[in-house]
């Protein structure tokens, strides 16, 4: 994947769900749950790097 062509992630996002979803086979189950949990965990990575910058 050409990462240079990805749109700039918004605050709270490192790898957008849409980008991750493209890597997966077609979703058969609850799309919304996959998205919610992906985004919740992804946000922790944003917290990590931005707090390293701002708080430490």
């Amino acid at each position, binding site marked *: 994947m050409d*990462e240079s062509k*990805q749109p*700039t*992630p*918004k*605050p*709270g*996002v*490192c790898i957008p769900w849409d980008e991750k979803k493209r890597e997966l086979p077609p979703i058969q189950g609850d799309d919304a749950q996959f998205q919610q949990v992906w985004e919740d965990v992804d946000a*922790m990575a*944003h*917290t*990590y*790097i*931005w*707090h*390293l*910058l*701002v*708080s*430490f």
Partner: protein
Amino acid sequence: MLFYIAATKRGISGEVFIVHSNDVDRKRGLRMSDKEMLYQQRLKRYTTALRKGKPDCVPIRPFVAEFTAKYAGMTCQEVSYDYRKAFEAALKCAADFDWDAVAASMVYVWTGLTHAVGLKYYGVPGIDVPADTGFQYREPPEDNAFMRADEYEQLIADPTGFLFNVWLPRVSGDVCAVGQPATFRNNLSFLKGGMAMMSYFHAFGPQIERLRRESGTVSAISGILKAPFDILADKLRGYMGLAMDLHERPKEVQRACQALMPHLLHIALSSADPARQVPIGFWMHRGCVPFISHDQFNTLYWPTLKPIIEELWRHGHQTMFYAEGRWLAHLDAFLELPEQSIVFHADQDDVFAVHKKIGHKFCISGGIPNYLLAYESPQAVRDFCKRVIDEVAVDGGYICDASAIMQNEVSIENIRAMTDFVRDYGQY
């Protein structure tokens, strides 16, 4: 910070500690403990002053950092490398002094975490500096800044990606640059760093709960903000590098500040007090004259900060301007902000002049000079506090604190003198 979210959910905005007791109103079967009543009294006092009101007496909210180590008989190494010791020292001070609010831990940098990540820009007590000297921040060399002058576009295009891919490998001795073979130390940096941060942040909830339960003390602030300009100066280009960029590439500096704004707002909002009672801590470093010119302040620093403060206020959050250094030249700009939206903490500014200029609009804190608290007599401390109460606190909207964060040079006797005098003379 994230830990403040957990903290405030469990503390300030969370459950109220109600205890069962046999000697109270049996109809209700409940009464507040003495400590909880004290907490509620202090919370009301503190938040009334924050909103420029006149409480029952002047609130005392000292930001005691390495002072807590000195008081608890610990070294700076002990409290900076083991946050549990820092927490214990903060609890001991809160229990022994009649303070309304404190920071859960003002020794905010846990050097155990910075070691785990491999960060190079801290001077760690007991290793890089003597064990009883506070931790230090090392400015990057001008010719080896953590971000190069020709990397602005990369930062602007994707700030988060830049931090992970470019900045972190430069500030950490363990993290590998993109394209380099991953190493054991690289992998451990992320694992240990992430788990350490989670452990640290989550420890603040119980700490705030203990402050409330054991001494009836309010957690004074929640969340963190820094100005986009200061982030560029402190952590990316270095002050000297940025000073040159302001002349050689001002548009890129401006666009970089704009690119940082939404992320810094996000961090501030996500770490703020959900109950909207206590302010977000905003630590102001080098955005004032003479570090930059009036023109640079007006065209760059302020336009990329003011919208963040306004947005926080739209969400119901006050911001505490911890104005390190002298900011008197910029008070007119701060007056553009909505009434009560900020609390202005006076460091080296003349607190009396600050009060005259902005006291009609914002709560003011601080202004008791650290040199007085460290090196002068208790009577000199009392005399200065009297003047502050008479001239600044007279109509409310003032919170007693030292000018700057108190380290271990501050005298215990003088802190006691300040506390006792303000409690006694500061009754409205």
